[in-house]
């Protein structure tokens, strides 16, 4: 059943990719390792669940409301926490610690409001039909995750490569100061990035909540750890690398479960990350920058 394993690996990899896209976007543009991304992801899942149960939204409405709610949340975090730190030129560790605080607030806030027990999406929200192709099975939600993560990556890559906005973002990633001197609205684009990245995180939360069919306040934490592994594998801040790193991790995990045993799944993921960093210090797909004295 190697083929079925490979299909499972593909969908797991795309799950990680979906999470990692927003995570890597923030790192690439703002230069911040945003440890609250896992919490935002969880908030997205809860927002969609509430939209479905309280307001009776259909799936697309739930996805949209999660995107907007988390986007607004990301904007708020950026405005209240990251912007003052940027204004002060704080060293990069400091924003990371601040986002830990934000994650604590969100995780425990949700736990305080909804309790620690698992919530589920209403049954029948997504069709439970599955696609069978030559003996391989793919559920509707898996197919959605795979298509969406490739589509989102394509859109992001195209936007970054071809549009004026993308050029401005890449200029900021290179040097915010130089971009500012060129007349780019740096602050505005930082806000936009925070909005989009958090929105994507929220979307990922909904899809993965549907995929695993369990929402709980700490659901973002394991995802965050995997997300860190993914963006390191892919080279920090690299969109294509995030997808490749995620697929790599997905395949490594599924194959290790199949051939070594499920208890070693996470050990394989992090062991690989450790080894790869030792051999290729900037990640599998990152490029090494020589420091000039």
């Amino acid at each position: 059943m190697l083929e079925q394993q490979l299909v499972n690996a593909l969908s797991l990899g795309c799950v990680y990719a979906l999470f990692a896209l927003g995570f890597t976007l923030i790192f690439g543009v703002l230069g911040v390792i945003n440890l609250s991304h896992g919490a935002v992801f969880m908030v997205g899942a809860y927002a969609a669940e509430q939209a479905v149960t309280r307001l009776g939204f259909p799936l697309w409405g739930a996805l949209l409301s999660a995107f907007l709610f988390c986007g607004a949340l990301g904007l708020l975090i950026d405005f209240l926490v990251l912007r003052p730190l940027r204004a002060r030129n704080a060293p990069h560790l400091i924003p990371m610690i601040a986002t830990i605080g934000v994650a604590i607030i969100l995780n425990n806030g949700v736990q305080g409001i909804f309790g620690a027990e698992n919530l589920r999406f209403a049954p029948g929200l997504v069709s439970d039909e599955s696609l069978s192709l030559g003996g391989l099975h793919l559920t509707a939600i898996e197919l959605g995750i795979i298509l969406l993560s490739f589509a989102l990556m394509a859109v992001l890559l195209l936007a970054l490569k071809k549009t004026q906005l993308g050029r401005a973002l890449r200029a900021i990633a290179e040097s915010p100061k130089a971009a500012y001197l060129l007349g780019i609205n740096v602050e505005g684009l930082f806000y936009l990035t925070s909005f989009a990245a958090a929105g994507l995180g929220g979307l990922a939360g909904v899809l993965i909540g549907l995929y695993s069919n369990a929402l709980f306040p700490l659901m973002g934490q394991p995802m965050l750890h995997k997300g860190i592994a993914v963006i390191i594998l892919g080279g920090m801040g690299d969109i294509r690398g995030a997808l490749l790193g995620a697929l790599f991790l997905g395949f490594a995990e599924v194959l290790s479960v199949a051939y070594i045993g499920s208890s070693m799944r996470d050990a394989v993921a992090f062991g690989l990350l450790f080894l790869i960093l030792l051999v290729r210090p900037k990640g599998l797909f990152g490029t090494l920058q020589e420091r000039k004295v």
Partner: protein
Amino acid sequence: MEWFDNFWSVYSNLVLTLGTNALLALSIYLTLSCGMLVIANAAFMGLGAYSAALLTMNYDAPFPLALAAGMTVPAVMAFVIGKPTLRLSGVYLAMATLAFGEVVRIALLNAESITGGALGLNGIPQSTQGWHVALALALTLALLWRLRRSKVGRAFEAIKEDETAAGLMGIDVGAHKMLAFVLGAALAGLAGALNAHLTFFIGPSEYGFDRGVEILTMAILGGIGNLTGPVLGALILTLLPELLRSFKDFRLVVNGFILVLIVLFLPKGISDTTRLRQWLAQRRSRA
């Protein structure tokens, strides 16, 4: 002394945890003071805790021997992984050590025959006395204080400011980084060993990512400019959840808010007094 006995019977565990947390914060301070962001301290703590606890439980080892083993095992481990790992710098070093930490945690989880797996080790004798922790903390502080003013400490600082320049000045960058890494690991192991003989029970989930981040937060929150910083940070992060008990379900939310506010308004940590002095000077000049 009656009030003290009462106080001690209720809060002794908290006070002792405070001490071991301070040791942990100092262990990450040591690597940070050499310019390295290492997040493996939770794993080193776990290695120390497990090796000490296994010695006392299975071999009836005397407590000092268990503590020594709790420091040696992580130090040796740090020495082994140090050579390839410390070539990395910045975020990449942080992530590699974080990954190493996860591997250690999962190894502890899966080595069921030795470590008891997810159930952990139960019934560790409670040999840690108040003066053990106090002595360990005092010795560590004295050692680190001496180190700061020694040739080695100045070399650490030079490496932290600029690695390339330090190397050009003739400092053996690799050896000094290794020293800071191994000492930090031994210190974290000591904290783990003391803590294990305090809490009766240890399990692998105590030494994961969240603990690692908590240790880092203590050091950064207190400030790494001097030795009081990490101790102060440990004090605050240990006491806050206790002081906020009245907020019930939302006490960790308040905890998070306070963390964010400290980062926003005291960027160099709580122990950095320049801001306070500036503010006082302003008030005086206005008056």
